[in-house]
């Protein structure tokens, strides 16, 4: 029998904290799962000057935080961090490792899994514990209209990546206590064979679509870039933000950072207006927290229409024009 306490590990991805809260969300989920297998919840952090994150993770439910701090770890490095996590996992044998599906996480986690000789499920939208105490990983598959339930029965750790916004964080609690385990950097840690030459933070937009009270989302059914532009007029009138589906981003009608869905932003507006969107799970996984959905589609049977509170059967672009007109006429000067 293994006498060591079982553990669920969450990789501490802090590079875009405060905007990116995926680590806190995973800590919350880990706290939900841990009692079912009598495990402790641990965060693992690499970098330099990490005290604020250590405190933050404990206040959000980490019972233990493993920290490796060194100036050579200051910049995120896929290869170095992968070797470090591999070695730590070999030393401490966690049951499960959860990694946020940020760009970094999506490149880093597969390499860790490979080095540890274990499985990895990408972009889970649900995590549960089976009767046998295994991690049940629920992930969209086959273009998004299907969900697959996946397990890693015979390999450890069980690993999964999860998109930011999938789970809800536990509110910050200063009363919570956690153990901090500081580990020295290993002397034989190899240099990353990929060299970072330049690293420039992209400017943040003013109102973030994630926080907007009104989101106007457009899909392929808007018909053209020109017609899609109307959505911006509507959003301006409503003090909201414009988002869209992947085809629309690929077509260049909308900036990549306004993509709504599993691969983009999760939204939680008071009102979501959805124009010409079919409702694939990769998109709707990110809209479930909208309070009220008005969907416009010429096909009444589209999934998005079934998910909406109001399903408007109409041409998306024409309805947008009519709605702008109707709003302008009603807004009190």
């Amino acid at each position: 029998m293994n006498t060591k306490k079982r553990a669920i590990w969450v990789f501490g991805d802090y590079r875009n904290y405060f905007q990116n809260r995926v680590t806190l969300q995973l800590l919350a989920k880990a706290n939900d799962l841990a009692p079912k297998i009598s495990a402790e919840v641990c965060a693992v952090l690499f970098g330099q000057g990490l005290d604020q994150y250590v405190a933050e993770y404990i206040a959000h439910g980490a019972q233990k935080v493993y920290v490796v701090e060194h100036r050579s770890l200051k910049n995120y490095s896929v290869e170095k961090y992968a070797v470090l996590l591999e070695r730590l996992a070999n030393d401490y044998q966690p049951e499960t490792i959860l990694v946020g599906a940020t760009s970094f996480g999506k490149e880093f986690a597969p390499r860790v899994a490979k080095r540890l000789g274990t499985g990895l499920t990408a972009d889970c939208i649900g995590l549960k514990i089976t009767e046998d105490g295994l991690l049940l990983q629920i992930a969209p598959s086959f273009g998004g209209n299907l969900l697959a339930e996946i397990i890693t029965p015979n390999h450890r750790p069980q690993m999964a990546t999860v998109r930011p916004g999938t789970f809800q964080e536990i509110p910050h609690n200063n009363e919570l206590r956690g153990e901090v385990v500081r580990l020295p950097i290993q002397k034989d840690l190899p240099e990353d064979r990929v060299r970072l030459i330049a690293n420039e933070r992209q400017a943040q937009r003013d109102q973030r679509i994630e926080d907007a009270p009104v989101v106007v989302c457009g899909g392929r059914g808007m018909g053209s870039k020109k017609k899609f532009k109307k959505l911006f007029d509507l959003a301006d009138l409503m003090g909201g933000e414009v988002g869209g589906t992947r085809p629309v981003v690929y077509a260049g009608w909308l900036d990549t950072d306004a993509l709504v869905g599993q691969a983009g932003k999760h939204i939680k507006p008071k009102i979501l207006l959805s124009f010409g969107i079919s409702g694939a799970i990769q998109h709707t996984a990110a809209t479930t927290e909208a309070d009220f959905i008005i969907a416009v589609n010429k096909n009444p049977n589209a999934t998005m229409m079934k998910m909406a509170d109001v399903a408007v059967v109409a041409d998306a672009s024409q309805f947008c024009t009519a709605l702008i007109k109707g709003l302008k006429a009603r807004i009190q000067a």
Partner: protein
Amino acid sequence: MVSELPWDSKTGTLRRDLAEGMMNPACANALEAAFQIKRRYGGDIITITMGPPMAEEVLYEATAMGADRGVLLTDPYMAGGDTFVTSHTLARAIEKECPDFDLVLCGCHTSDSETAQVGPQLAEELDIPGVAYVEQLEINNRTVRMQRLSDNFFETLEMDLPGLVTVTTQANAPRYPSLSVLETAFGKPDISILGAADLGLEPETIGVQGSPTKILDVYSSTAKKKNLIMKGTAKKIVDEVFEKFGDRISGAIKKDLKTHYHEKKP
């Protein structure tokens, strides 16, 4: 779109073959990047795909567009593999078919499963440096310089060859083979077909058997809400929306809305 559930309950795997036969979009960008590199710096392009026999189509297509040869890895034992065994199988094929490779190009993700895991895992398997989500790359002697956007950071990175990159769909505009090119190419494409035994791979280390992850179940994900359906002219529906939900809209946009509204004739 797949209309039939591509789930094989007997073997517990997704039947990717139902959707196969078409080049994955991001792979078309990877191939285009290869053509651009060949034009600027020279080199031979070898395309490799693992899949059912009909996956050979994409190798024909790639050869027709200018790839020098193709390698198809196909074997019933390879079917149903997760990214762990897929990257293992691809790595052994690369080592056998082109041991002196300089650069491995992958798509950043596939359109059906879109794990984006095979590229990074292949770099581990081959023990070479690797960079994912690359948008631009340049080669100088034996050094590749790459640019990408990663979590709101614009990064410029360098590595020495041999190496691996995964290419995003933003990286370039893939060319399409014209029909006449496709027809002439079908004459004598250089395509080798290999099975597990040719690569010296034991059945239990590949495909569904060798995969650490197992699929328990697959189901449709449609959620349904009791909702209000509105039909008619756009103008009529807009009026109905404001009549029924004017308060809610007014609250969300923090603006007062006129409740009794009649459109004035100009």
